[in-house]
């Protein structure tokens, strides 16, 4: 394998950290999948856990794209990942990566705070962007990202991919078929023992406020906020909430949050999200006028309890693969076919707004009404 190596000293302010040698978690078996048609060249910015567990292996798998370069402020880490996955270039400054002319798109896999500046620079260089969730740490940043993508006519997608999971696709079909009647309330929860367990070597930035913005609310909370908004086809009107540091005294950001989201239709959603939960939990229950739908509760499965003559409980079959397929393939295809991405930045700005509102309610002790229109 031939490999050209470019490297420069990082001048942009670091966004990754710690112990690069223990970084490589995924082996690259799918590297040689044949690519059809024009092959998009992808750059990965930030090679922490999410890049190695998801973005890199997924982009290696898809048709019509290949990873051309990676970037991380820690040189050893960037080099190690590039070697492991057979990636041509590595950099320590993302601006150098962006100046590669043949590059079509980038994945932004950095800590939250860097999502906006890197995405905007990438857009301004004419690159399409897949940015990890959450979109940003402030609404202003999110809007600047949206504007940058618009003015440069590039695609901007946010990696909020829960809605691609087959269990949720089937769940949404059941909802839309009206099997449980009109939705009244939702209870949704997502928690694990914390980023230090999920990503032991690189997870420490999650606890630094300036890098992460908020804690578990952005990390996990936005996932289910996004999911529930999608299930209900509805937007949040007001929230009350409580965020707290319950068990991680060393953390600068919350490790637990509860939000009560009132949707415009009047539906109430109770969102619980936690970094202090052993064992981890996840689950969504949608209570309707005719029955209740359980998803992922307690394991990955679906259960509907419907009130009728026999008060039946069903467990619909969940297909192995979702209808939409791999979201990374969809991202590549949306560039090639000039389609709107599946998870738009506008959409994820709304999820961010809800998370920020929960935090604000906790801070002020007041009901927070959301401002975004439409």
């Amino acid at each position, binding site marked *: 394998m031939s490999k050209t190596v470019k490297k420069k000293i990082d001048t942009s302010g670091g966004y990754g950290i710690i112990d690069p040698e223990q970084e490589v978690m995924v082996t690259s078996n799918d590297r040689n999948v044949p690519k059809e048609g024009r092959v998009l060249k992808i750059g990965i910015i930030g090679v922490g856990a999410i890049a190695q567990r998801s973005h890199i292996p997924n982009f290696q798998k898809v048709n019509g794209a290949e990873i051309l370069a990676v970037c991380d402020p820690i040189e050893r880490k960037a080099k190690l990942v590039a070697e492991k996955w057979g990636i041509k270039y590595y950099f320590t400054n993302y601006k150098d990566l962006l100046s590669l002319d043949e590059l079509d798109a980038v994945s932004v896999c950095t800590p939250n705070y860097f999502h906006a500046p890197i995405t905007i620079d990438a857009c301004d260089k004419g690159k399409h962007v897949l940015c990890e969730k959450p979109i940003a740490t402030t609404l202003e940043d999110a809007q600047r990202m949206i504007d940058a993508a618009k003015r440069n006519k590039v695609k901007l997608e946010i990696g909020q991919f829960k809605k691609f999971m087959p269990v949720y696709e089937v769940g949404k079909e059941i909802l839309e078929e009206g099997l449980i009647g009109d939705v*009244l*309330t939702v*209870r949704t*929860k997502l*928690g694990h023992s914390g980023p230090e367990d999920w990503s032991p070597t690189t997870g420490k930035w999650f606890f630094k406020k300036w890098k992460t913005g908020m804690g578990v609310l952005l990390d996990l909370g936005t996932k289910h906020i996004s999911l529930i908004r999608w299930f209900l086809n509805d937007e949040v009107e007001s929230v*009350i*909430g*409580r965020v*707290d540091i*319950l*068990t991680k005294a060393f953390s600068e950001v919350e490790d*637990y949050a*509860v939000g*009560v989201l*009132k949707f415009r239709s*009047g539906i*109430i959603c*109770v969102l*619980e999200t*936690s970094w*202090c*939960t*052993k*064992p981890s*939990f996840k689950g969504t229950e949608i*209570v309707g*006028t*005719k*029955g*209740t739908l359980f998803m992922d509760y307690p394991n990955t499965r679906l259960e509907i*309890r*419907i*009130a009728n003559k026999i*008060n*039946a*409980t069903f467990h619909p079959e969940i297909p192995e693969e979702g209808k939409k397929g791999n979201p990374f393939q969809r991202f590549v295809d949306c560039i090639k076919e000039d389609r709107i991405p599946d998870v738009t930045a506008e959409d994820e700005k709304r999820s961010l707004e809800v998370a920020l509102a929960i935090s604000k*309610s906790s801070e002020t*002790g*007041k*009901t927070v009404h959301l401002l975004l229109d439409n």
Partner: protein
Amino acid sequence: MQEKINIGVVGLDNWYHALPYCQVLSEMEEVEFIGVSDESYERTKCTAKQYGVKKWSTDHREIIEDAAIDAVIITACTNQHAGLSELAAINGKQVLCDKPIEVSLEKADSIIQTIKKTEVKFMMSFTRRVKPHFIKAKEMIQKGKIGQVACIMETGRFLLPRSEPNSEEPGWYAEMAKAGGGGFVDHAVHQLDALRWFLNDEVEQVLGYTSNLVYKEIEVEDYGIATFKFNKGTVATVESTWTVVPPDAPCDRVEIQGTKGSITIDEISHRTTLYDRKGEVSYHFPFEDSDIFRKMLENFVTAIRSDRPPLASAWDGRAATELVLAVYQSAKEGRRITLPAR
């Protein structure tokens, strides 16, 4: 052998509790069920006949003031609890009072003052404290099985109550003046009492929301949710509703997350499960509803006959009601309430 304690049942409005108490009273060795009163002539007469109760009346005073009566169970509608239990206390009767203690803190305080003066025993009918699956969870928490309790989520979804066993209407349960609230207060007092009992701790801050999601025509809420911050740091969330349909109704669960593990309680299937590093252990407690009311009465009898305080006091009743009222205030004003609110 000790003499039997003569008990009267005052008010049958909360028949969900009154009728099983009547049933158990008629079966227990230690007590004699000798009087029953209710404003409804038919209901009182039928109940007296069914359980072989000698004295019955549509005037509560006839039972409360009867010299033969040692103790009363107050299961009249909530806004009568103070009047009836204070009358009983003044007449030297021991009181087992249904939940919630009253519709306001002023009336709860009035009860507390009267029972202090009269030195009668007063016990709140908080049934979770005798339920074996709840006791199991409390033991596990106390033994440190899950470390420090970080957060708790209680989910209670119930059907709209019925004013009588064969009625379709909620009746007094949905009247603000008589019940002091609706779908939230109805079961949240149980849930909140269990929280205080589990944690041995008091609430500092309350943030709540209530709504009418299904029954828009009733004057009380059919849905409530609130988050509670306890003094020692635990955050608990309680959802309590009248808005769910079978077969998911009733749904009544508690999920307790600690620093070393977690506990879930399924009230409906009487199952308590511990999750920790070693895995998962589930405890199942088969019992009948009547067993719970028997245990409540046994505890009441023991408290009367000994110096032991009853398992839930008037203060416990006041505390649960204070929390519910804070939720209502928070929901109304759209702001967090710091306790004590008044």
